[in-house]
């Protein structure tokens, strides 16, 4: 175990001691994270190892990336969609992250955007084995989707992280995000005759709901 582990452990215990009250009266979770870019938190609250990791990426791509959150073992970086391929290549080459664990799409109808979050992990480096880096980007969303032929497109990361192949296919059918450069943008899970809008968008309603 490295020094960072012991550090994070102690911070966990501190949290426990400071809030022994029952859950109902608990004021807030120990680490309130932010969906949108949060105001910069005080320096000592951020875990050092994770902070150093995000700093490396932010230093490289100054304005094109922003740090979503830095939590214990979890970091998130929001990237503009034009730069996602470059950032992914940088992460693949310069950091030990070598595979994608999951690719989740999130629909935001109010922002007229669809977010795609790549959760990256590392098998090769022991220090990074508990780290998950969430790399997120956003594609424009259209009111009447026409999967594959409208502006909801993103560059595919399949050439960088091979393991996203099936995840991106799933994201395509569930959200209608077409991945440019993906060799095999076909249906994966839905029936062949599916003619409705992509089902995981927020304006698709289950029956009776």
């Amino acid at each position: 175990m490295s020094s960072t582990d012991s550090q994070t452990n102690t911070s966990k215990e501190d949290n426990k001691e400071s809030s022994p009250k029952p859950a109902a009266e608990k004021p807030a979770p120990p680490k309130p994270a932010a969906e949108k870019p949060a105001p910069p938190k005080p320096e000592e609250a951020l875990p050092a190892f994770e902070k150093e990791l995000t700093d490396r990426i932010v230093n490289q791509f100054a304005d094109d990336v922003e740090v979503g959150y830095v939590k214990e073992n979890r970091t998130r970086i929001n990237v503009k969609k034009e730069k996602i391929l470059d950032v992914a290549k940088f992460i693949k080459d310069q950091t030990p992250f070598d595979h994608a664990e999951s690719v989740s799409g999130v629909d935001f109808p109010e922002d007229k955007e669809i977010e795609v979050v790549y959760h990256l992990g590392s098998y090769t480096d022991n220090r990074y084995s508990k780290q998950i880096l969430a790399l997120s980007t956003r594609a424009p969303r259209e009111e009447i989707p026409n999967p594959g032929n409208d502006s909801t497109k993103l560059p595919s990361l399949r050439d960088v992280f091979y393991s996203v192949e099936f995840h991106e296919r799933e994201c395509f059918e569930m959200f209608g995000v077409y991945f440019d450069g993906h060799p095999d943008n076909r249906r994966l899970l839905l029936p062949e005759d599916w003619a409705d809008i992509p089902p995981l968008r927020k304006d698709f309603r289950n029956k009776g709901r």
Partner: protein
Amino acid sequence: MLKELVTPQNANVFVGKLGDILYKAIDKPLGMAINWGRMWSLWPVHIETACCSVEFGAASSPRYDVERFGIIEAFGSLRQCDLVVVQGTITRKMAPRLRLVYDQMPDPKYVIAMGACAITGGLYFDSYNVLPGIDGILPVDVYVPGCPPRPETLIQGCMLLQEKIKRMKAR
């Protein structure tokens, strides 16, 4: 007298009547024999549709052992099978395949709907990709409720089917 009754015009009617009488006379013992043969050799086709297949597998394990009731473990070739156990949820992608499997099986064939999902859609009643029960695509003989049904329940359902076959008209 017989000559008056049987004219060339109504000869085939008379023969048909005779056939009916003959059939009625031997229907009962013959039908019983046929049904007896059918009820003790039910061959379920090997089609897994959802998670109830775990309990279907457990039913043929040593502890429950459906084979002692004349139901053989799931079998690959559907041309030799006469029972479809619909093991759980039927999705919209699976439904045409299930009907295709059923259509290819030789008569007589029986259907057991296993689990809440196969009966009404169950827990997935509001899902976009799940059929609300298989009644729309297959004629069901026995419903086995549960989510998933215990192997004992499945065995009881199979025995109910055997009881039903016993009272069916053999054709």
